[in-house]
C-alpha cells in the first residue's frame, strides 16, 4: 500500500523544467546566441564582439598615450608598454577591423542579394566562434603565458613580430606563442567566413540579381573576401613557420643557421598589405551605399566604381615591400614597389571623385550616416596623400618607423574605416532594431570624436617630421616633442567622450528611440524591402530584381530604373 502511494506521487511529479526554456531569461538568451546559425544574429554578434574588443584596445591606446604625455614619464613599466602597443595593434586589426567587416557582410549581404541566409549557416557560426575564441586566447596571455606568478606576460613583439625577435632566445616563455596560435586560429575563422560570403554571393542571388546589379556594398565584400582567401593563408603559413622554429628547432628565421630574417618580413607583408585593403574595403562599401541614398541620386559611374575596387585589390597584391624600403633591397625592387604603390592612388582617386560626383547636384540630407561619410572623404584624402608621400622610397627612408607613419595609418583606420563603421551602424541601426538612432546624441558623438581624432593624430605627423620614432617608451624633454605629445593625449580624452556618447546612443535608442518603420531613409537596396527588424527567413517571397535599385522600381512603377539602364 505504501509503495503504491509513492509510485503515484512519482507519477504526479510535474515534468522537469528545462533550463533555458523560460522566455527572456538569461540562460535562454545565452542558449540562443550559442546555438544560432542565423546570419543576422551572427552579424550582430560579430559587430558586438568587435565593439567589445574596440573598447579594450582603446583603453590600451589610452595607456600608451598617458605614458607618452610627458617626457621621462614612468606611468607604465617598459615591458607593460611593449605589451600594450602589441596588443593594441593586434586587437585593432584582427579583433576589431576584420570582425566589423564580417559583421556587416554577414548581416547585409544575404539581405541585399535577396537570399534567406548565408550559403553555409553552420560554417558561419563556426567562423564567428573561432574568431571569438581566438580573441579570448590572445587575451588569456595576460594571465596564462608563464602563469600568474610572473604576471604581465602578454605578447610584446609588435603586431608584425619581426624576426629574430620572435625566436626562443629573444622571446622567452610563451607570450609569442599566444600571439602565434591566436592568429592561426583567427585566420581559420576568417577564411571560413570569407569563403561563405563568396559562395553566398555567387550561388544564392535572387532571380534577376545579376553581377552587374549587385549593390556596390556587396561588390566590396566580394573583393574583401577574395583578398582574405588569398592573404590570410599566407599569415597562417607564417605562424606555422614561427611555431616550427620555436618548438621543433626549425631554421626558417634562425639567422645563426642560415635562416633569413628578411624572409619573414616578405612573408608577413605579402599578407600584411592586402590586409590593409581588407580593412579599408568596408569603408568603401558603406560609403558607396550611404552617399547615394542621402544625396537622393544613384551612384555616379557604377561600373567604374566596381572596376576601381577590383583594380585596388589586384594592385594591392603586388605592393607589399613598400613596408620594407629601409631594409635595403636592390634598387630595382625599390623602383618596382614605388611604382606599384603609386598606381593604387589612381583607382582610389577615381572612387573619391565618383563619390563627390554622386553628391554634386544632389538633394543632401544631413543625417548622421552622411555626416560621418563626409568626414571620411576629407580624412581619407589626407591619409591617401600621406600614403603617396610614404610610397616614395627616399621619403620613406627618412620617415619610416616614425610617428608620421603612425599618423598616416591612423588616418586610414580611424579617419577612414572607423568613421564609416559609425556611419554604417547609424544607417542600418533602424534595420536591425526598428528604432531610429538619436540625432542629437549622434551629433555630440560626431563632433567630439572628429575633433578628438584630429587633435590626437594631426600633431603626430609633425612629431614624425621632428624625428620621434614609433614604439619608443619615453623621450627627453629637449627634443621639442613635449607639447604635441601632450596635445595628442588630450585628444584621446575627447575621443573617449565621443565614444561614450556613441555607446549611450546605442543603448538609449534601443529602449527609448523613435520607431523607425520599415524604410526610414527611403532607400533603394533590397534589405529595406523587408520589415525592420527582418524576420528570420528575411523574405516571405523571393524578390524579382530588374535594375540596380529594385526598391526604387517598386516605389516608382511609373518611372522605374530598368527603363534607363
Amino acid at each position, binding site marked *: 500500500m505504501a509503495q503504491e502511494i509513492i509510485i503515484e506521487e512519482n507519477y504526479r511529479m510535474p515534468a522537469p523544467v528545462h533550463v533555458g526554456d523560460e522566455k527572456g531569461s538569461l540562460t535562454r538568451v545565452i542558449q540562443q546566441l550559442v546555438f544560432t546559425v542565423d546570419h543576422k544574429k551572427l552579424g550582430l554578434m560579430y559587430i558586438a564582439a568587435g565593439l567589445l574588443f574596440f573598447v579594450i584596445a582603446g583603453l590600451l591606446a589610452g595607456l600608451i598615450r598617458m605614458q607618452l604625455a610627458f617626457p621621462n614619464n614612468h606611468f607604465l613599466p617598459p615591458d607593460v608598454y611593449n605589451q600594450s602597443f602589441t596588443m593594441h595593434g593586434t586587437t585593432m586589426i584582427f579583433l576589431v577591423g576584420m570582425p566589423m567587416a564580417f559583421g556587416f557582410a554577414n548581416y547585409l549581404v544575404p539581405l541585399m542579394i535577396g537570399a534567406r541566409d548565408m550559403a553555409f549557416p553552420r560554417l558561419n557560426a563556426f567562423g564567428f566562434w573561432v574568431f571569438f575564441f581566438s580573441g579570448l586566447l590572445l587575451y588569456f596571455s595576460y594571465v596564462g603565458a608563464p602563469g600568474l606568478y610572473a604576471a604581465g606576460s602578454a605578447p610584446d613583439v609588435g603586431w608584425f613580430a619581426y624576426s629574430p625577435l620572435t625566436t626562443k632566445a629573444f622571446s622567452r616563455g610563451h607570450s609569442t606563442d599566444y600571439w602565434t596560435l591566436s592568429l592561426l586560429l583567427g585566420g581559420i575563422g576568417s577564411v571560413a567566413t570569407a569563403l561563405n560570403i563568396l559562395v553566398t554571393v555567387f550561388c544564392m542571388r535572387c532571380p534577376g540579381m545579376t553581377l552587374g546589379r549587385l549593390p556596390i556594398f556587396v561588390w566590396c565584400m566580394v573583393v574583401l573576401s577574395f583578398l582574405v582567401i588569398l592573404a590570410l593563408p*599566407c599569415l597562417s603559413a607564417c605562424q606555422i613557420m614561427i611555431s616550427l622554429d620555436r618548438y621543433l628547432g626549425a631554421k*626558417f628565421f634562425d639567422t645563426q643557421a642560415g635562416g633569413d630574417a628578411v624572409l619573414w618580413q616578405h612573408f608577413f607583408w605579402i599578407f600584411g598589405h592586402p590586409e590593409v585593403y581588407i580593412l579599408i574595403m568596408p569603408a568603401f562599401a558603406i560609403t558607396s551605399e550611404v552617399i547615394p541614398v542621402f544625396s537622393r541620386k544613384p551612384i555616379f559611374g557604377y561600373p567604374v566604381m566596381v572596376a576601381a575596387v577590383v583594380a585596388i585589390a589586384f594592385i594591392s597584391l603586388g605592393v607589399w615591400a613598400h613596408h620594407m624600403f629601409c631594409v635595403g633591397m636592390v634598387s630595382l625592387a625599390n623602383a618596382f614597389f614605388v611604382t606599384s604603390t603609386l598606381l593604387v592612388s589612381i583607382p582610389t582617386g577615381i572612387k573619391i571623385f565618383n563619390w563627390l560626383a554622386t553628391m554634386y547636384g544632389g538633394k543632401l540630407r544631413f543625417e548622421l550616416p552622411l555626416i560621418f561619410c563626409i568626414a571620411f572623404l576629407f580624412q581619407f584624402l589626407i591619409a591617401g596623400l600621406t600614403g603617396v608621400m610614404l610610397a616614395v622610397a627616399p621619403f620613406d627612408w627618412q620617415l619610416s618607423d616614425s610617428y608620421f607613419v603612425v599618423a598616416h595609418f591612423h588616418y586610414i583606420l580611424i579617419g577612414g574605416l572607423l568613421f564609416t563603421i559609425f556611419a554604417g551602424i547609424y544607417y542600418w541601426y533602424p534595420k536591425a532594431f526598428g528604432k531610429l538612432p538619436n540625432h542629437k546624441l549622434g551629433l555630440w558623438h560626431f563632433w567630439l570624436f572628429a575633433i578628438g581624432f584630429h587633435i590626437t593624430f594631426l600633431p603626430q605627423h609633425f612629431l614624425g617630421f621632428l624625428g620621434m620614432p614609433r614604439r619608443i617608451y619615453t623621450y627627453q624633454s629637449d627634443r621639442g616633442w613635449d607639447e604635441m605629445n601632450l596635445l595628442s593625449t588630450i585628444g584621446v580624452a575627447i575621443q573617449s567622450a565621443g565614444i561614450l556618447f556613441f555607446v549611450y546612443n546605442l543603448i538609449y535608442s534601443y529602449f527609448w528611440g523613435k520607431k523607425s518603420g520599415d524604410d526610414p531613409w527611403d532607400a533603394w537596396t533590397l534589405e529595406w524591402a523587408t520589415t525592420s527588424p527582418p524576420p528570420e527567413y528575411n523574405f516571405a517571397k523571393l524578390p524579382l530584381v530588374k535594375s540596380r535599385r529594385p526598391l526604387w522600381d517598386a516605389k516608382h512603377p511609373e518611372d522605374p530604373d530598368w527603363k534607363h539602364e
Partner: protein
Amino acid sequence: MNSATTENPADWKLPSARKFGILTLILAESALFTIFVVAYLFYMGKSLNGPYPSEVLEFPLLGTLALFSSSGTIFMAERCLLAGNKPGFSLWWGITTALGIYFLYFTGAEWHHLIFEKNLLISTNTFGTTFYSLVGLHAFHVIVGVLLLLGILISSLRGRLHSDHTEHVEAISYYWHFVDCIWIVVLTVVYFLSVRVQP
C-alpha cells in the same frame, strides 16, 4: 547578360554552392602552399651544413605512381556513381582510398629512412626545415583527403550513398585532384630541381 533569361525566374541558374565552396577552399590552400614552396625555393642550395638534397633524396617512384593513378581511379568511381553502378563505385573508391593510404605509408617509410639512417631532422639545416614542412604539409592534406575518402567509402559500403550525394562526392574528388596537383609541384621543386643544385 541576356535580359530575356534574367527576367524569367524559372531560367535563373547559379553555380552549385558545394562546388564553388570547395574551389574557393582550394584557392586558399594554394595560397598556403605557395608560401611554403617559395620558402623551399628560397633556401635551395643555401644550407650551411649537410646532408644536402642530392645526397639523401631518392625519386619517390612508387608513391608518385600511387598518387597519380588515384586521380584516375577516383574519376572512374565518379563515372560509376553517375551511371548508378554502386558496387563499381565502391570498388573504384576503395582502390582510391587504398592508393592514398599506400602513399602515406610510402612517405612514412621515406621519412623513417631520412631520419634514422641519413640523420636529416627538421632542425638539421634549412633543407631539413623546408623539406619536412613542405612535404609534411602535403602529407597532412593527404591524411585529410584519406579521412574524407574513408567516410564516403564507409557510407557507400553500408548502402547509405544515394544519387543526391553526387555533389558531395564530386567536391571530395575536386579536393583529391588538388592534392594530386600539389604533388606535381612538390615533385618538381623537391625531387627534380633541388637534387640538381650543388651545395
